[in-house]
Every structure is written in C-alpha cells, then in structure tokens.
C-alpha cells in the first residue's frame, strides 16, 4: 500500500473518531452552548480534513484553496448579516 492509502485510512479513522466524539459530547452534562459550539467546531474540522486529504487540496497549489475559500467567504457573509439582522426581533 502506498503512502496515499495510509493517509486516506488515517483521515478516515480521524473522521469516525470525531463523529463518535460529537455523539459523546451530545450526552455530556455541560452547558448547551459549549456542547453546540464544540459539535459545530468538530464538523468544521471534519469538513476541512475531507477537503484537504480526500479532495487533495493539501497537495494542490494554494491558489485553488484560495479560490475555494471565496465561495465559503460569501456564504459566511450571507449567514452572518442575515441572521444578525433579526437578532432580538419577535415574529408571531
């Protein structure tokens, strides 16, 4: 087995572990906010691992990662401003 395959297998193991960690965190007696933030953070970490090692961004020129980040940046702007705009507003 080549080096790549070992990387694939370790990344997969990490993804599974992180998912199990999400499930464990879910049942922990911690404040809801901390649990939620950690779970979403873990999801972001998993996404990053997949993008870097399964989609091979880690081995591609930086320009491609930068290009991919543009789309994510625009989504973050949309999410942040649209949700902020209704903070503290009651809908019936």
């Amino acid at each position, binding site marked *: 087995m080549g080096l790549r395959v070992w990387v694939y297998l370790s990344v997969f193991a990490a993804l599974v572990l992180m998912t199990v960690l999400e499930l464990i965190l879910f049942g922990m007696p911690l404040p809801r906010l901390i649990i939620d933030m950690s*779970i979403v953070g873990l999801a972001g970490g998993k996404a990053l691992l997949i993008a870097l090692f399964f989609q091979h961004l880690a081995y591609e020129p930086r320009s491609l990662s930068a290009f991919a980040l543009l789309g994510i940046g625009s989504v973050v702007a949309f999410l942040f401003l649209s949700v902020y705009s209704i903070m503290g*507003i009651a809908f019936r």
Partner: protein
Amino acid sequence: MDPQQLPPGHSIKRWLLTTNHKDVGILYLVTSLYFLVLGGILALVFRLQLADPGLNILSPPAFNQAVTIHGLVMVLFVVSPLAFALANYVVPLQIGARDLAFPRLNALSYWLYLFGGLLVMISFFQDRTLDVGWTLYQPLSSAFSPYVGVNTGGLGLALLTASVTVSTVNFVVTIFRSRAKGLRLTALPMFTLGVLLTVLMMLYAFPALLAGIILLSSDRILGTVYFTSPEGGAILWDHIFWFFGHPEVYIVLFPALGVFGDVLVTFSRRPLFARRIIIAAMVVVAALSFLVWGHHMFLTGMHPDVRRAFTVTTIAISLPFDAIILSFIYTLAKARIELKTPMLFVLGSIAIFIIGGITGVFLGSIALDYVLRGTYFVVAHFHYTMAGGALVGLIAGVYYWYPKMTGRMFSEKLGRLQFILTMIGFNMLYFPLFLSWEMPRRVPIYVESLMPLQQVATIGGFIFGVSFLVMFWNLLYSLRYGEPAGNNPWGAHTLEWMTESPPPPHNFDGTPTFADGRLSFIAANGAAHGEPETHLSPWPFMLSLASFTALLGLTTHIMVSIVGVGLLAFSVLGFAGERFISREDPLGERWPFDRVDRMKLAWWTFISSEVVLFGVVLSAYVYVRTASATWPAPGTLLDIGHGAMNTFILLTSSLTVVLALASARTGNRTGTVGFLAATLALGALFLFNKYGEWSELFSHGITFSSSLPASTFFLTTGIHGAHVFAGLLALGYLLARALKGAYLGKGHETLEYFGYYWHFVDIVWVFIFPLFYLV
C-alpha cells in the same frame, strides 16, 4: 482544424449543432435582441396605460404581469445575455484562444437560456404568468399566487440559472487557462477583464437565486412553509433575493464597463488613464457587491447595527466607482477623440451612468429611503444605471465589434441617428420619473398632477423604442450592403483585430503570443495538432430540449415530464459518450492556475457554486431557527440513530471513492471496480436509510407542511439526497466503464473529478448531521 467541418451559414443544421464560440455568440446576440423587443413592447404597452390613469388598456392583473415580465426579461434575458453574446464572440479572440475551454458546454448554456425563456413565454398562455414583481416578494408569490403560470415562469428562471452556472464555469476556466503567452491578468483587454469579474460575481450570486427558487417552488408545489410562515416569510426571501440581486446589478454593468475601457482607448488614441487603479477599483466593487444587499430592505426593520453597516457599505461602494469613471474621463485629456458611433454611445452611456450613480448615493441613505423607497425615483435610478449604463453601453459594444463579426461596416449616419434618438428618448423617458419621486411604482392609478410628467415619459419611451428600429435596420442592411471592413477598421490595438473579419473558425493562423512583450504569431505546426477539433454536437440542443420538456410537464401534464426525463437520460448518455475533441494549447499564460488542469479548475468552479447553493439553504435553516421562538429539542423530532448511521455510511463511501482512485492510479482493476461498487452500495444504503427515516416521519403525520422544523428538514435533506442520487447515477456509469477496463493509469483523473463532487456531498452531510440532529 478543418474549416469545412462547419456547414454554411444558411443551413439550419449549422445553427442547431454548432459549438463554435463565434456562432454561439451570434445566437446569443439574435436571441437577446429578440427578448429586447419582447420586453420593450411590454414596456410600451404599460407606458401607454400610464399616459392617462383613466385609460383602460391593461386590467390590474394584466398590468402587474406586464411590469413583472418586463423586469425579469430585461434583466435576466436581455442585458446579461447581450453581454454574453459579445463575451462569447470577443473574449476568445481577445485572449488569443481558438475557442472557449468547453465548446459543448457553451452551446449548452445558450440552449438552456433559450428554452428557459421559452418556459417564461409559455407561462403567458397559461392562466397567468408571473404577476408578483420581478423581485418575487413573499408571501405574495408563495401563498397568495395560486396560478400555474407562476410555477412555469419560476421553472424558466431555474433553467436560466442552470445556463448561467454552466457558462460561468466555462468562462472562468477559459480566461484563467487559455490566455496567449505573455498576456498577464492585468494586461487583459478591459472587456475580457470586465467579463472575468462578471463571471466571478455570477459564480457566487446565481446559486443564491437558484436556492431561492428551489425554496419558493418547494413552498408552492410541495407545501413547505419557508415563506408562508411568519418566521421565514418576507424577510428571509428579501435576504436571499437581494444577496443575488445586488451583485446582479454589477453583473449586468461590468461587461459594459469593459466596453467603455476598450472603446475609449481606441477612439481617443490614448492609453487608459490609471488603468491599474481602474482594475483594482473594479475588484473592490466586485467584492463589496456581496455586502450591500441590505439597502433594498432598509425599511423592513432590520437590526440597527445591520442597517448602519449596509448604509456604510452602500455609500462607500460609490468611491471605487468614482475612481473608475473619473479615470475614464481623464483618459480624454490630450486625446484625439474620434466621435464614431461606438464612441458616441460610450460617452452618452457614461454621462447617463453618472446620473444613475449619483442618485444611487441618495438611495444608500436610509433616511432618504423613508421617502424614496418603492417610488418612481427608484425606477428612474435603476434605469439610468441598468438601461443607460449597461444596455446602452453594450450597444456601443455591438457597433464596435459589428465589423469584426460580419466583415462589413455599418452605416455611420444611421448609427448617429440612433444615438441622437437614444439620448433624447432615454432622457425624456426616465428623467421625468425622478421628478415623480412621490409616486408609487407599479400602479396604473396616480394623481392627475403627475400626468404631464408621465406623458412626457411615454413619448420618450416611444422615441427610445424607435431608436432600436433604426439599429435593427442598420445592422441588417449593412450585413449585405455595408463597406468591407478589413481586419482592423478602427485602428485598435487589441488582439481581436489582428485577424480576418469575420475570423476563420480557428480564429488565428498560427498561435498568438506576447512572450516578448509584443504580439507575434508562432506558425501553426500541423503535425502537433493531431486530430482535427470538433465544432458540431447535437447534444447541447437535445439536453436543453429534454430539460425543458421535463420541466414543462410539471405544470402541464405529467406524461410530458416522463417523456422529458427519458429524453434527458438519452441525451446525458449521448453527451457523455460522444467523441468530442477540443484541445488546450500547450503554450499559454495561466497564472494563478498554472498547475491546475482545466478539468480540475472546472470542477472546483462548479463545486464553488454548489457551496453557495447549500450555504444559502443551510443559512435559511439557521435563519428560521433564530427567528422561531420555539424549536423541538434535539432527539425529539428526529431520530439521532438514523442521522448517525447515515454519517458513518457516507464517511465510509468517501473512503471507498479515494481507495478506488488509488487503485486506478496503480492500474489495479479489481480494486477500482470493487471500491466503486462498494461506493455505489453505500450510497444506495444511505438513500435506503433516508427512505426509512422519511416514511417513519410521514407515518407519524409529519410532512413537508407540518411546521418549519419539518419543512427545513425535509427540503434540506431532500436537496442533499437528490445530490446523492445524481452521484449514484454517475457512479453507475463509471462502474460500467470501469468493468470494461477504463480509468486505469492515465485515465484515473475522471475518478478524481467524481471524488470532488462526492466528497463535497459528504461535507454537506457533515454539517447537516450536527445542525439538524444534535444542536
């Protein structure tokens, strides 16, 4: 390269099958002008109605349909496609390419656009076409508009967004990967630069529109409650629509800015003033354009911080525009200005755009918006920018490149006549509307004191309309009787003028290069070219016809859809199996993607559009959850077991895809086939598990329309599931070919590209799982 491959211009076969960028450009040009006539006639009809509120030309529903379709057609089916007509024809010539990177996809964009337009037109003959304003505000266009034609029109828009996505991918890859040696990004002609920034904005804006249309159609057809519930409703739609809608304003404008740049240099015989600052300013505008949408919703009662932020960004975006327009004007100093038709239109368009820009600053001020919102001031402002700046600017482009496209000169006299009529008609039409700044938009009934202003506008509208007849006559007449143009009638310096008019199918004899800082041609080496490139394919037309049929059936008869889906499957296989040769030149300027091959770049561009699509759908979920006072606790509505199991299934399927790739790379056929089959099985298992989860929910009476938590869950995982399903179809195809020994060694890239898609779908699930099940 065999020019004989293309049938002659008078044969219908040529125009149905062509994939050559110049032919596709002409098709775009003719079609967009056709829609211009359609949108223009609608405008003249309601202008007549507006000449006198007592007239009964249009009933209120007819009036609403006329203004709605006028707006949609002009913005989405006229101005942008007209820009892409020029872009199709000119961009490959300006960068020294033989064609776009993906000629068949280019033809596909055109046909999808045409058939999207046809769907919108068919909706006229159903009960009612879209009558809810081109902005499709909610909940008017979801819960309060029961008409079938509105569904059809919406599907037409969906087809258009598909067309735009395909051409975005194509132009991004072409401009990044197919430039002549030495043609750095900053050395690109202004028009190509404008198009590059345009497609980058399209890449992130149009998927948001697609997401909006999917949510809206789902509300209308499946009964979800995104926009019919107060927590989602009007404001959620506003955010989604204007997140697309404001960049769209610059999307229609930027190609015209590019025309300004090229025409100004040619006819003032001077280099552009502060060219690099113009480029930097355009980049700033393109980026900022995604941060200003909130000024369309100042009065919706957004959080004060957000309103202030949007005021600052909106007014601030006028600064880079300042730099751009002033540089254009400073270019005229110490120049030798030839007032030929294209130059006249550019100067006129800049003057009009200045007025549009200044009045735009007014609308960026919330306090003034308390008065100007929803009035004719807004109508006047955006016509000064989008009709005067963009459309009139693009007409300059049509005149400028007409000799290149046809090999003939147009009549200068008629060109000037049109210019005079355009300037008089345009200003008579739209300036009085500024003065009607307290009159509501989209109403046929208004106070009598405004009648004189409205009547002047109507007369202006007809003069503006006649000016286009002059143009059509000029363009048609000169096609046959115009003076021969020669290669470079304007004495321009850019590359498109360094070949014949019209150019041969392969554009240049030899390969253009700027490697020594000046243009030279490397003689074509026949042996290196190998097999001739292909210029004809029936599949773009067939695919579009099939999609059209499948969608039309949704609002007419389900049998039509079934035929359409069958045709679609047939066309997809035909498209995939066709032997179509289009080579990338081995020489070329490709920064910053030198080491990213064109298929890879194309896939990543496509994935970017998918990122925005899912990003908006997931944001909509976060938004309605934030807006809702209550939300079921995790584990109550949804069974965490199902979600966790599907997470593990999909993660494993990602592993099997990369293992299939690794096997293919080393030429291991058993491994390739085995891991592909395993992926297929895991994908099917995922969908089966999902099916179980959904039927369980349905059996408890929880459906699309039950509540926002149910709606968001079903639709988000439904769109995701559809992506998994599409992936399974592709996997079936890959598996069938792998069984015959494909992809081993050299062909393994195909599996890599498929992996991009499959892993992306996996990543989406990685977010769906915690957001819907755990948090």
